[in-house]
Structures are given as structure tokens and as C-alpha cells.
């Protein structure tokens, strides 16, 4: 009886994940069979989804470009630089960053960050405007894809930091002590004994962060004033899948609803692929590292 219940619960989880995929597919189907002219944009589903997929990727890329180096450095700081007594408390502070709800980050990004980034954006447009991604005129509100990317970076950072910290702490102590005993400086020790060991872990932590950045909704929905796909990061424009769904779904009905669910299905598949690769890397790493 009891073992049956336990087995049933396990099976339920498998069923739920398949149900998520199944119901999204069923509810998305009308979009694919609909007349292309009736889809938003009037040119079929592909040309509707393409710009927001690219927008999603742009925002996630910005987030990772900022969060990866800082996150890894923060993890190194906590594992190898901070005084031992401080390290646990600092780890808790980083976890605190992760505990703040995304809507609060969104509100902060929209009200504080966007307005304080107006001046830098204007400067960028004036002096670096010849680079396509900084083409002016800069947004007057600061609510651009770059701001959204920065807010996403703040939200992804604790994930990358806490995962890589775990890996750094597992790095074999003997190797590190041997490196120090041979006269290596702290940085040389980290480069020779810690980073090579942690490479797989860092990659998978970044992938998991990417999964989060791709699917994060509120930061983008509140921060970005959306529009069509453009190359410039400092003008209002671009849109991500998750934000598009959050903004439009509450009022959507009929074909529009199916369209948004289809967009959700695309997002689901992208994040599923990213997460599966990340987990695969982690599991492979576990088998070969000898850390367990």
C-alpha cells in the first residue's frame, strides 16, 4: 500500500512533466493550422515568434555576459579569499539575493535602475553611436533591453555564484596545498588546482543560469518598454517570449491565446534543451571528478 503510494507519487511527477508538454502542444495546435494572415503580424507563426525568440536570446546573453565573470569571482571570493569565519555569512548574503522575489527586482529595475541608466545611455549613444548596438537616440526612460539584461544578470548571479561555490569547495585540498607548497601564489594555485577541476561545474552553472534568464518574466515585463526587433540595446524595442505572455495573456482569448501558448511551448522547449544539457554535463562531471 505505502510503497504503492510512493511509487504512484514518483509516477505522477513523470506524468506531470509529460502533461505539461502535452497540454501545451494540444492548446498550441490551433495556431499552426490557422490561416497565416490571422496570426499577429499577419505572416504566420514563424515570423511572429522569430523576433521574440531573438529578443529572449539577446536579454539572456547580456545577463550571462555580466553575471558569469562576477558570479564566478564571487564564488571564488567566498571559497578561497574571504576569511573563513566570514565566508558562511557571506554565502548567506548571496542566497538572500536569490530570495528576493522577481517582481521586486522588476519594480526596482523599472523605477530606480532605468532612471539612473538614462545618462550613461545618452553618453553611449553620443560617443559610441557608430557601433550598431549603441545606436542612438538613447531611450528617454532608460527602459531598454540592456536595462532588462542587467536586472536579469542580478537575478542569475546568485544561482551561478552558489553553484560554482559548491564546486570550488570540492576541489581537492591536496592539490591546492601541493601547489602552495611549491611556491605558487594564491592566484596560480587557483588557476592550476581549482579552475581546471571546476570547469565542467562552471559550464553547467552557467547553463542553469541561462535557463533561468531565458524563462524569467517579471524583470523584463516591468523593465522593458517593448517593440519590434532592433539591433540597438539602448533604445526601447525588442521583446522576450516570457514577457510577451505575461503582458498579453490576461486579456487574450481565441486564437491569440493559442498563439501565446504556442510561444510558451517554444520557450519550454528551449529551456528544456538548455537544462538537459546542463544536467548532462553535471552528471558526467560527477562520474569523472572523483569528488563524490
Amino acid at each position, binding site marked *: 500500500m505505502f510503497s504503492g503510494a510512493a511509487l504512484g*507519487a514518483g509516477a505522477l511527477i513523470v506524468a506531470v512533466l509529460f*502533461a505539461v508538454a502535452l*497540454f501545451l502542444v494540444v492548446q498550441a495546435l490551433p495556431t499552426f493550422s490557422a490561416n497565416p494572415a490571422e496570426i499577429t503580424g499577419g505572416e504566420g507563426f514563424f515570423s511572429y515568434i522569430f523576433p521574440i525568440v531573438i529578443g529572449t536570446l539577446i536579454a539572456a546573453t547580456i545577463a550571462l555576459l555580466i553575471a558569469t565573470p*562576477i558570479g564566478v569571482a564571487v564564488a571564488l571570493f567566498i571559497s578561497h579569499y574571504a576569511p573563513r569565519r566570514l565566508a558562511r555569512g557571506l554565502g548567506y548574503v548571496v542566497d*538572500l539575493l536569490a530570495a528576493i522575489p522577481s517582481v521586486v527586482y522588476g519594480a526596482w529595475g523599472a523605477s530606480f535602475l532605468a532612471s539612473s541608466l538614462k545618462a550613461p545611455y545618452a553618453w553611449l549613444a553620443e560617443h559610441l553611436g557608430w557601433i550598431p548596438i549603441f545606436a542612438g537616440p538613447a531611450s528617454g526612460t532608460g527602459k531598454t533591453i540592456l536595462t532588462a539584461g542587467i536586472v536579469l544578470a542580478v537575478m542569475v548571479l546568485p544561482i551561478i555564484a552558489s553553484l560554482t561555490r559548491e564546486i570550488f569547495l570540492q576541489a581537492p585540498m591536496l592539490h591546492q596545498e601541493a601547489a602552495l607548497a611549491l611556491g605558487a601564489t594564491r592566484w596560480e594555485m587557483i588557476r592550476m588546482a581549482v579552475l581546471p577541476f571546476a570547469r565542467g561545474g562552471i559550464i553547467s552553472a552557467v547553463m542553469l543560469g541561462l535557463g533561468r534568464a531565458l524563462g524569467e518574466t517579471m524583470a523584463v515585463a*516591468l523593465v522593458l518598454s517593448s517593440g519590434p526587433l532592433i539591433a540597438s540595446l539602448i533604445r526601447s524595442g525588442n521583446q522576450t517570449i516570457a514577457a510577451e505572455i*505575461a503582458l498579453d495573456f490576461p486579456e487574450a*482569448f481565441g486564437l491569440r491565446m493559442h498563439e501565446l501558448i504556442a510561444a510558451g511551448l517554444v520557450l519550454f522547449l528551449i529551456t528544456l534543451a538548455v537544462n538537459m544539457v546542463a544536467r548532462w554535463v553535471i552528471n558526467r562531471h560527477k562520474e569523472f571528478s572523483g569528488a563524490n
Partner: protein
Amino acid sequence: MATLITERKRSALTRGRLPRYTPWVIAASAVVVSAALLSLIGFNVFGWAVLSAVLFAAANVTAAAIVEGRRKATDKLASSLIYGAFLVALLPLVSVIWTVLLNGVPGLLTPGFLSTSMNGVTGAVDNAAVADGTPVLGGVYHALVGSVLITLWATIISVPVGLLTAIYLVEYSAGNKFSKVITFLVDVMTGIPSIVAGLFAAAFFALILGPGTKTGFVAAVALSVLMIPVVVRSSEEMLKIVPNELREAAYALGVRKWRTIVKVVIPTAISGIASGVTLAIARVIGETAPLLVTAGFATSINMNVFAGWMSSLPTFIYTQIMTPTSPSNSDPSTQRAWAAALLLILLVMLLNLGARLVARLFAPKTGR
């Protein structure tokens, strides 16, 4: 004679090293120099701190490069970058908390904020409040009720499923293929975007109850999809560390397996399980996106999760910012949104603290 003494002091081991006080000297001069530089173009505290830090790092590395050689300089550079990255990472945390406190405290202290709903609070009411300078009316009572009820139902769904799955994985599966599949899928489930979980619940109930079904229960199902993997993971870890001797002792006394699990294994692990569940609650109570597409927006109190739209703290914040109650005077709405944000952060922090307390409270008594 004098030269002999100094040479003995600076032996081969310490030659080519900067004296210990160097960083302090460099730091002091960096602070002074950057203050002087900034006073030329306009002084501000933030720029001063940043410039001092950059100058300090640069001077430190250069001094090391000149006196101590390239390897030491590289080491110093790496250290400066890592310390700098940590400080940069703290900036948003401090900034977020400061912004929320600054904007949220006045609203939270407004009488009636916690005990009234937005029922009857219209744009005209807000306009009047701004015009007359009277306190802002309306509050979060309905959202608070909604948040608590939805999270409660999500917990009621997720905890049994999650806990039983963890028990299956640890106690019954013996590492078979199916358990590997479950573990993998649970890992994958942790990565499901929250909005997709919301869409799933919306699509599911649209199929069985007709399109446009938005109730608190739909939202609870959406949150469960996010919560179950967290519960499974944390309970699994906790069950794994229950020593095998306890199980074997129970079996030796002729206790059945299910009774061993219920009477021995779970009570031993209960502190970890409870704190894991509390952390999972803290995670989902702040979720916004799934509630937007499943629970709708309500302005009045709804105690029934099975019928009618429901508000919650995160969606309350979102709607107050995106569509202010009075389009011409958004200040009262902004104030309510920030106050709700502060309340939400306080709730999440309390839950996090509670998790630690629970872990300590339920910890199994150890003999003596």
C-alpha cells in the same frame, strides 16, 4: 656596521618584498587623490568610492610589478578583481533593499493598509487623496489573503507528492532505471520557466472546465509544478542522511518497512524536511508570472479558491505599477505597490529565518 645590520634585516627570503604597511599607504593616498580629482569635475560619494578603489588596485598592482615581480603582480591583480567583483555584486542587493525600504515604509505604516482591500478604491478616491493630502486609502488585505490561500493549497498538493516521491527514490527504488528517470525529470522540472508552469495550469483547466477558468486553485496547481521538484530534492537529501543502522534496528525488531519509514526514518529527518518545505514556500510565494495567467486580478476579498478571481501580493504589486488605479495620479498606486513589495520581502525573509528555526526546533533529540 650600519649597512651590515640593514642587510641582515633584509635577508634573501624577504628581499624584493613590499613592506607590510604599503597597502595602507596606497589606500590612504588613493582616497585623497581621487577626492582631489573628483573635486575638479564635481564631487559625489559613489564616484569617489569607485575611483578610490580603482586607483588603489592599480597602484597596488603597479607597485608589486615594480618591486616584487610579475607573478606577484598578477596575483594582486586577480585578488583586486575578485574583491571588486564581490563589492559589485553587493551593490544591487543594497540598492534593492534601500529602494524598497525608502519607498515602502510610508505605505506600510498607513493605517488600514493591512486590514483593508482595494474594494471601492477607484481613481476618484486616489485623486481626492492626492488633492486633499489625506492618507492613501486601500490596502493589501485581499492580496494577502489570496497569497496565503494559494500558497497553502500549493503546499497541500506538493508536500505529499514530493515527500512520497522522495521516499520512493530513497527507500524503495534501490537505484533502478525508473528512479534515474524520475531524478533526471525532477532536475529538469526545477528549470521550467514559471510562466510555462502557469500556462500549463491555464491550458489544463481550460480543457476540462472550459476556457478562461481563472481561480485560486488553478494558480495553486501552477505553483505546485514549481514547488514539487524543490520539495523532492530537499527531502531526498534529508532521507539519504538518515543512518542505515536505525532502519536495520527497526527491521530487527520485526517492524514492517512502511512503519519503519513512518515511525523511524521520517521523524529523524523531519527537521530537514520541514525546513526544506518552508524554503520551497518562500520560493513560490514570490512567484508572479504563473499567477498572472491563472488567478486573474481581483480588488476585493475572495476566500474561495475554487471560484472567482483572486489577488495575491506579487500580482498586486505588478498591477499597481503597470495599471495605476488612477491613471492621472499614479503616486498612491506606486506607494501601495512599494509597501506591498516591502511586505512581500519581509514575508520571504521571515520564511527563510523560519526554515532555520524549524530545522533547529525539530532536530532529533540526541541521547544525553
